[in-house]
């Protein structure tokens, strides 16, 4: 037959044609909408979950002080600057006393004068007493003389009246003395007050600390309560940490913390939760906790950002899955279970979740169940799948 002799070239082209057709069919079934969806799977296994809470915080001083005058005034001198360490009682700044010194002197003088007035009043009382004694003895003598008829009644009356007048003068002198004594007390109190005020114009450090801010220079006028200097106790630095309310279950005092400062992320510091604020932030929906350093680090500034991880107790012997295998139908969490060659969505209940993505499965699966982790596309109940080691484009 002629055909057999033609075989070589026709065979070539037939083979080429078939190869092209096969390529075509292969392309159609392995990519595009007809192809099965590539997935990776894993088995539910027992393991350990290390749950932890994460938040970002700022370094703050627990004890911070605003140093300023109690009355408006002008700053006279500032002795320290930002960064200086100060001791308790150290003079940090002085306000200008203006006329206060003069007022103190005036108060001293006024007090002295009041003291003199007391002395004078006392002398006047003594004098009045003397006169009264004399008037008394004279009145007694004249009354006696009057009875004996040696003097007229009017003279006796006169002497009696002198006695009354001397009594009155004593009362007056006593009251004048009391009055000057009160005046003295008042002036003395004023004097003490002026001295006290004078002392207030000396701004002294309430404790040992570090100056963090110098807010007014000599010559500036400040109002009452305005800070001239700000001071912190560096031993009281802690991290004010904010945690998402929805991811803060298990927050309690004493949780061990790992603090990574933004300025030195490579070296984490150890710490623990020392306070949980009773008021949360409703605007940002965060809970606030203060985390103290176990050992105070050097060279840390306030308002520095830090990442804080609070380690909770591990959950051992738990069924775990990577959190990438969780899918959500509405609010219900679940996984795609591969059983007997079929794909099924199984709702699950999750427990603890670690920061590494391992999540504890409390209900819905048992050990050994095979579950889809990564998928090329969203899966449906009737999706055809093909299990691979890893999805294309995700290898390094």
């Amino acid at each position, binding site marked *: *037959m*002629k055909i057999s*002799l*033609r075989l070589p070239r026709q065979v070539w082209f037939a083979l080429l044609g078939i190869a092209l057709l096969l390529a075509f069919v292969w392309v159609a079934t392995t990519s595009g909408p007809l192809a099965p969806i590539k997935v990776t799977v894993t088995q539910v296994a027992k393991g350990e979950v290390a749950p932890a809470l994460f938040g970002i915080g700022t370094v703050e001083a627990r004890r911070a002080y605003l140093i300023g005058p109690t009355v408006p005034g002008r700053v006279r001198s500032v002795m320290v600057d930002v960064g200086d360490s100060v001791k308790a009682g150290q003079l940090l700044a002085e306000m200008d006393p203006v006329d206060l010194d003069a007022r103190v002197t005036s108060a001293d003088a006024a007090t002295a004068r009041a003291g003199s007035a007391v002395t004078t009043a006392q002398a006047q009382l003594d004098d009045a007493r003397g006169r009264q004694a004399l008037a008394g003895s004279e009145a007694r003598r004249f009354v006696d003389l009057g009875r004996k008829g040696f003097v007229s009644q009017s003279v006796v009356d006169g002497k009696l009246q002198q006695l009354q007048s001397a009594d009155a003068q004593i009362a007056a002198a006593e009251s004048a003395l009391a009055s000057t004594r009160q005046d003295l007390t008042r002036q003395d109190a004023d004097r003490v007050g002026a001295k006290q005020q004078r002392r207030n114009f000396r701004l002294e450090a309430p404790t040992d600390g570090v100056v963090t801010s110098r807010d007014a220079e000599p010559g500036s006028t400040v109002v009452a309560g305005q800070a001239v200097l700000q001071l912190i106790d560096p031993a009281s630095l802690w991290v004010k940490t904010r945690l998402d309310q929805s991811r803060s279950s298990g927050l309690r005092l004493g949780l061990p913390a790992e603090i990574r400062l933004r300025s030195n992320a490579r070296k984490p510091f150890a710490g623990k939760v020392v306070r949980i604020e009773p008021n949360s932030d409703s605007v940002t929906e965060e809970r606030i906790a203060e985390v103290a350093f176990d050992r105070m680090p050097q060279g840390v500034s306030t308002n520095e950002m830090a990442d804080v991880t609070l380690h909770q107790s591990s959950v051992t012997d738990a069924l775990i899955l990577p959190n990438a295998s969780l899918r959500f139908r509405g609010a219900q969490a679940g996984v795609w279970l591969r059983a007997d060659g079929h794909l099924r969505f199984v709702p699950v209940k999750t427990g603890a979740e670690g920061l590494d993505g391992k999540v504890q499965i409390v209900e819905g699966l048992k050990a050994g169940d095979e579950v889809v982790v990564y998928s090329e596309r969203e899966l449906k109940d009737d999706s055809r799948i093909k299990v691979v080691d890893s999805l294309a484009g995700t290898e390094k």
Partner: protein
Amino acid sequence: MDKAVGIQIEGLSKRYGAGEAAVDALREVNMSIAPGEVVGLVGPSGSGKTTLLKCLGAVIEPTRGRITLGGEVIYDNGWKISDLRVLRRDRIGFIFQAPYLIPFLDVTDNVALLPMLAGRPNGEARARALELLQALDVAHRANAETSELSGGEQQRVSIARALANRPPVILADEPTAPLDSDRGLAVVRILNQMASEYQTAIIVVTHDEKIIPTFKRVYNIRDGRTFEEAGEGRALE
């Protein structure tokens, strides 16, 4: 002359154009060729030989006259055959100035094409083709591409093609033009062989001086008129 087969032409005229510019290419041509005869048609260019072939080949319509091919009147002042294409396919074989083989068919298929066109099954057509190729001593090239053949081999294949449907008539137009004298004579020898073997009437248009003496009969054509004369009939080895 036996009117049952062969070529018979009576009073054939062909006029091109009309009126003042009219050209009479053929004027009252009469011709008769018996089956098995190989006759030459000789004349200068412009004498009307090509026109005569075209009329015989049923590719142009004559103006007047009668043509009988293989015993069948095909033209009598009007075509008498409804499908000229079928006529050409089954009743007339063509040999051209050049082999004009179909380049994308191999040698066998070039020849087998004609019976296939006539409706023969492929196997039978190829068998017939092989037969003819053997007869023309070119069967060893049966599976070759046409471009691989020499000029003479190609000419022989084209002759085989012309014979493939066993037509009663073969029209050969300057079949030896591209060939040298030896090969030209060989072609004529083959034509004579085929003519006697298959009883085909063959008319050979030529002005090749080397082969004209081999014809037993020659028609001279001049200005559209033909004159018969006896040829030398020189023998061919």
